Structure formats: C-alpha cells, structure tokens
C-alpha cells in the first residue's frame, strides 16, 4: 500500500500510546496521533485536553484545543485552573504529547520566537501549556516534521524543558518525571541515549536513508548501535487514519465544529 511520510509519522507516533495511558494532548499532529491510537490499538486511552475536557472522544479532529466536539464527547469538563492544578500538576497524566517550532538534540522545545526575544524575526505563539506539561507528565512524546530549520543545533529560545541545554539540567533540577522519551518525525524515530540524553536515531522509516536524516538534522545526527526499520503502516492503521482525516475535512469545511 502507498502512504505518505506524514501518514507514517502519525501512525508511528500513535503506536507509542497504550490503552491504559492518560494523555495530555497538544493540538495538530499530536491530536491526530492520539485519536488514531484510540481508533486502532488503544481504544481505552484517556485523552485530556487543556481546555478542561477529560476523557474526550472526538469523532473528528478538533481544529482548536477547545472545540465543542471535545466537551460534548468528554466524561467531564473542568475549569482551566482545575485542569492545570489538580490534573496536570497533581500528577494524574502519564504521557504528554507535544510539538514545537524548534527542537534540539536534548528534546528542548522552542515555541516562543525565531531571532532575538526583544526583536524577533518571527513571533511564535508562545508556551501555552507546554512548559508545565513537559515537567508534570510522566513521560513526553514529541512529533515534528524532520527538517534542519526545525531540528536545530541551538534553540533561539528555550520555552519548554526537555533534558536541558547540555542534556543534564533536568536531572540536576531534580525533576522526577522522565521528560522526552520519544521523538517521532516523518523520517525516523529518535530516543534519548542513556546517560547523555541525546536524541539518537533508533528506527528509520521504510525507504529513509541515514544520509537523508543527517542532511535534514541541524545537529550532527547520531544513530543507535542497532537501528530498526519502522514497521510500515498496516491497512487497518491507514484506513483508520484516512477515515479520521476525511471526517475531519468534511466537518471543518462545513463550518461546524
């Protein structure tokens, strides 16, 4: 079966979620992966959105973090202060699923500015929930498109802590949660190397060469001793993802959330 690099990325990310995970979902690529997991191998996965919706079961992907679809399908909806205090800070969330404009080799994220903070070339949206999601959730999964502008040697701004600027700061700060354990791109899967916490390639998606990864990574990409080939998308996974995207496109062009 033919499939796109984006489909491979979304499916590879979805596979990382388990039915008993409680997942704090970022909008966009993370939301697609989380809802695909729920539609396929992890029907029991609990999706929590920062708008306060707990156990949301959207039939279409929400365009925003607070679409009506999330509230209408949720077990319950709490206020935003309650969401951040009791549920996130309280340690109830096992996985946070994030993305950003830039990531570095230690899984730190920038979603604040490109260029100097005081005179940015591009003003990005800002931290949103990510800063505390990254330190309060048990583990962090990340999903990004793989190119040298996004995967950079040095972030323009450190919005959200991964393992820290040298890979050791998270540990030194005594943060009890694991931080980034997985980075899925449209080319490969990266996981932090033991001790250094550097994101290293542990699996290449079918058809991707090491050279292609190296060319598209802003730091000198390193590979684990054993690099697997990612299992290609199954027909079941592809059908589920395409149905989800088709339902979503119909709903959003119709003007209804």
């Amino acid at each position, binding site marked *: 079966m033919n499939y796109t690099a984006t489909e491979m990325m979304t499916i590879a990310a979805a596979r990382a979620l388990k039915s008993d995970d409680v997942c704090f979902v970022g909008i966009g690529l993370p939301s697609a992966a989380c809802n695909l997991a729920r539609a396929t191998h992890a029907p029991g996965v609990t999706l929590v959105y920062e708008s306060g919706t707990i156990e949301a079961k959207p039939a279409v992907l929400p365009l925003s973090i607070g679409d009506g679809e*999330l509230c209408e399908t949720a077990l319950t909806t709490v*206020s*935003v*202060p309650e969401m951040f205090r009791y549920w996130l800070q309280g340690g109830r969330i096992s996985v946070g699923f994030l993305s950003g404009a830039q990531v570095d080799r230690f899984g730190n994220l920038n979603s604040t500015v490109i260029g100097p903070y005081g005179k940015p*070339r591009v*003003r990005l949206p800002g*931290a949103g929930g990510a*800063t505390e999601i990254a330190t309060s959730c048990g583990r962090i999964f990340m999903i990004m498109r793989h190119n040298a502008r996004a995967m950079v040697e040095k972030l323009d701004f450190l919005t959200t802590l991964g393992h820290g600027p040298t890979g050791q700061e998270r540990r030194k700060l005594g943060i009890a949660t694991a931080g980034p354990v997985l980075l899925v791109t449209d080319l490969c899967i990266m996981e932090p190397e033991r001790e250094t916490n550097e994101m290293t390639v542990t699996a290449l998606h079918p058809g991707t060469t090491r050279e292609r990864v190296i060319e598209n990574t802003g730091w000198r990409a390193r590979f684990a001793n054993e690099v697997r080939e990612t299992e290609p998308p199954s027909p079941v996974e592809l059908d589920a993802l395409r149905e989800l995207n088709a339902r979503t496109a119909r709903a959003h062009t119709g003007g209804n959330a």
Partner: protein
Amino acid sequence: MASFQLLPDAISNLVHDGDTVALEGFTHLIPFAAGHEIIRQGRRNLTLIRMTPDLIYDQMIGSGCARKLVFSWGGNPGVGSLYRLRDAVENGWPNEIEIEEHSHAAMANAYAAGAAGMPSAFFRGYRGTELPEVNARIRFVDCPFTGEPLACVPAHRPDVAMIHAQRADRKGNVLIEGIVGVQKEAVLAARRSLVTVEEVVDDLAAGSPNSVVLPSWTVTAIAVAPEGARPSYAHGYYSRDNSFYVAWDGIAKERESFTRWMRENVLR
C-alpha cells in the same frame, strides 16, 4: 446587583483608556461583541490580559487599542499566526506593544489567585525554561515547609473582566456551560465586570446543582448580545465557525486587507 445595560453603554461606563482589561473565554464563548464595541469606541492604551489572545485580540491590537499584552499563547488556533499581533511585536504597527509572557499554568493560577483575593500565586512551574529571563514578574520562592522551589507570579486583578455566557435570569444571575475556561475566576478577580449573554430568561434552567453560576451581585453589568461570541461558539446555541478562523489568516496577513475588513464588518 448586576445592572442590565445596552452594550455600547456598558462599554462606555466600564472601560476607560489605560485600563487593564481581560476578555476571557477559552476557545469557547469568546466575547467578540464586547471586543468589537471597544474597537468602535476607540479605546486606547489598554493593557490586555488573556490566556489565548486569538482573533478578537488580533483585531483589537491591529486597531490600536492595546499598549501591553499579558498572555500565554497567541495564535490562531489550529490555523497559524496572529498577523496583527506579530506586526505589532515585530514592526510596531500600528503601535509598539509591550509583551508580558507566561505559561497557561501561570495565567490560570494568577486568575485563581485574583479571585481568591491573594497578591500572588504559587505553583510548580517554569522549571528549566528561559521565560523567567524575559519576564521579571516570574519569580521563585522556597516552600517554607519542604524547601521546594516554587514558581510565583502576581495575581491578575484586572480593572474590567468581560466574558460571554449562555444566559442570565431577570435578576442578573449568569449561567456558563461547556468549556468554562477561566471565566468565573476572571470575573471574581476583576474590579468591574461585564457579561454579555445570548438571552435573558425567567429561569436559568441550570443542568445540575453544580452548574457554573455567577450570582448577580458578583457582576457589574449584563448586556444582551445574541450571537455575541461568533465566530467562536456558544455551547447549546451555535457551533464554531471554523471556516472563518481559516479565512482570518488571509484577511489579517496584510494591513490593507485587515483595515478594509474591519471597516466593512466592525466599524460600520
């Protein structure tokens, strides 16, 4: 007790140049009608607080209402950038704008602290980020019992909070349903408050004894503004106009198309 006022009167009475103003609504129930009236009345030098400055703040900033923005996520949700916010920050158009930038957790805690009458909020946050280096109002204190360093930010105490709600009863009690965001906290934290509502009814018909209700005596003014949250949505009344959020990307990208759209749709 809340007083029922026409929206132009309520804005004229409650919002003054230089005020600190919070229009809240987390994707849902965004008070567009109130924001548009502020633009029409030409308020200037406002400090605008909002967790997620989206289209309404893009319109207010592009119209020159704001001197400062206090926020945690400024984008067009699911679509991309806020071009008017970016033009103000990147190029100073139509005026320079000061930025005070937080995380969502900080903003939510700051509203809750304001509602609780506290001077500041403490929480476990901002660990390992560079945000404290660019925002002097993010500090850390040690827990007096455990020694754990905790993030601390000042409480939000806006001069005026504005929210949109489904309905009020004739006494001025207000019901909010669905994604309730930080609206209750914003109203309780503010010195004055304006609630625009879809309708005024004899009986609020709250769905549960635990529904989010703001008693009349916590609200300064109520203005009836049917569809006052469009193009966002009002749970139980109308859904989100996602196509407009997509269209805004094109409208707001250039100063000229933005100005024309505002003239034809808001200022007329």
